[in-house]
């Protein structure tokens, strides 16, 4: 499914994998997360506290939101009072009210569930955050809100990020390095470093860079877009 992949994520670095559906992005991410083991090749990770946010919020339906956010802390043996305190603090920064925290996930709106899922990932203070198209199903307002929360938490913890997305604009907005994948077999066909700091990327900059990016022949080929006229 995947071929000849050499991928390295440095400490505190944000790497985005973009590519069409079915090119093996999720497989690659699951390999990095240790959810899958490779048939060939090796995966070495020196990250001690990875966390992942999935495409769907994947909260445990039988646990209240507060307990869901504290799940990773509980797994680390943090006592109840302490993890509730930490989870509640994080949730407040994520815009969840005390009311939301007392509800079961089924009673929360999709946006609130996504916030809770992001809070759950950040609760463990991850040094590597894996994002599996985590924002792809959200509306643009909520997306930009979550981008802001993500940037804030990243700055606070210095977490590295490995994200997969098919949204070029999202990659341009968040990543230090963008890798373009193409399918069957999945391989990395282009790499692009973004040097502008995340804080300095305003809307106009993001639009301009994305527009520029989408003209690249590698990207057009990977997403099976027709070649540009005169290019």
């Amino acid at each position, binding site marked *: 499914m995947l071929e000849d992949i050499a991928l390295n994520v440095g400490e505190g670095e944000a790497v985005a994998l973009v590519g069409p559906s079915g090119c093996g992005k999720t497989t690659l991410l699951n390999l990095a997360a240790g959810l899958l083991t490779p048939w060939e090749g090796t995966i070495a990770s020196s990250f001690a506290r990875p966390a992942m946010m999935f495409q769907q919020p*994947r909260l445990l*339906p039988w646990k209240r939101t507060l307990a869901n956010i504290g*799940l990773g802390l509980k797994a680390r043996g943090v006592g109840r009072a302490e993890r509730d305190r930490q989870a509640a603090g994080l949730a407040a920064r994520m815009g969840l009210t005390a009311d939301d925290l*007392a509800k079961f996930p089924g009673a929360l709106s999709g946006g609130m569930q996504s916030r809770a899922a992001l809070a759950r990932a950040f609760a463990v203070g991850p040094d590597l955050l894996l994002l599996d198209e985590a924002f792809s199903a959200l509306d643009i307002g909520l997306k930009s809100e979550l981008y802001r929360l993500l940037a804030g938490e990243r700055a606070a913890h210095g977490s590295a990020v490995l994200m997969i997305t098919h949204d070029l604009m999202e990659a341009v907005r968040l990543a230090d390095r963008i890798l373009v994948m193409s399918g069957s077999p999945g391989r990395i066909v282009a790499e692009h470093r973004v040097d502008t700091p995340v804080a300095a990327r305003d809307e106009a900059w993001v639009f301009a860079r994305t527009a520029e990016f989408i003209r690249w022949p590698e990207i057009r080929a990977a997403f099976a877009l027709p070649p540009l006229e005169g290019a």
Partner: protein
Amino acid sequence: MTRNLRQQASDALTASGHYLWSGWGSLASLGIFLAIWELTAQQLGPLILPTPIEALTTLRGLFESGAAWPEIAITARRALAGFGLSVVIGSLLGLAAGVSMTASMMARPIITVLVGMPPIAWLILALLWFGAGDGTPIFTVFIACFPIIFVGAMQGTRTLDGQLKEVARMFGLSTWMKLTDVYLPHVVSYLFPAWISALGMSWKIVVMAELLSTEDGIGAALAVSRSHLDTAASMAWIVALVGTLLAIEYLLLEPLKRRVESWREFASSSN
């Protein structure tokens, strides 16, 4: 925090409100049932079908003479012993079978046979093996309830959401935490309905077994009243039987189920 408590209290009130309201519905349908019984009894005469009042009066007589309680207690003991055995063994084996694909494949034909085998056939075998006594009804109840509970437990484990398993692995949950925080809550939502239908089953089977194999218990009392052509007493025993079953289901199991699965209730009521 007070706000939180108030929210929880109001949630609980809403939930019990729903429960009571559904209770009124049940009472109404029970009333209709009694009315149809009464009308039919008036048509057929007391020898064929006594009226509800006659049956209840006979039942009261049985209670007042002290004849009812010992028999009910004996029947309950047998039904619950068989049911309890199948709950413990069926749940454990079902969970184990659900974890392994091979085990579930192997269990399938056996379960098909167990489900397909009529309880009366088991009863005959049990009579040969255990003779007249507690062993026969307990075994028959156990073997009839076992496949229901086994299948419930197995499906509970098999249908465990792979996505939530990934979450559990990603967040480094220990085996114990996976069990208590992820697997059990899901499995319980399959197990509970299975337990409840098995309990209803156990009550029916135990009376059948007693009717044919023992000297005491509600089943034996039914056999006696039948041989005396005492329809009113038969009806009274049947009412006692059904009443006990309803009491256990609605006073014990249903509230328990509501409590265990409160997340489902709240999730669906607020969407």
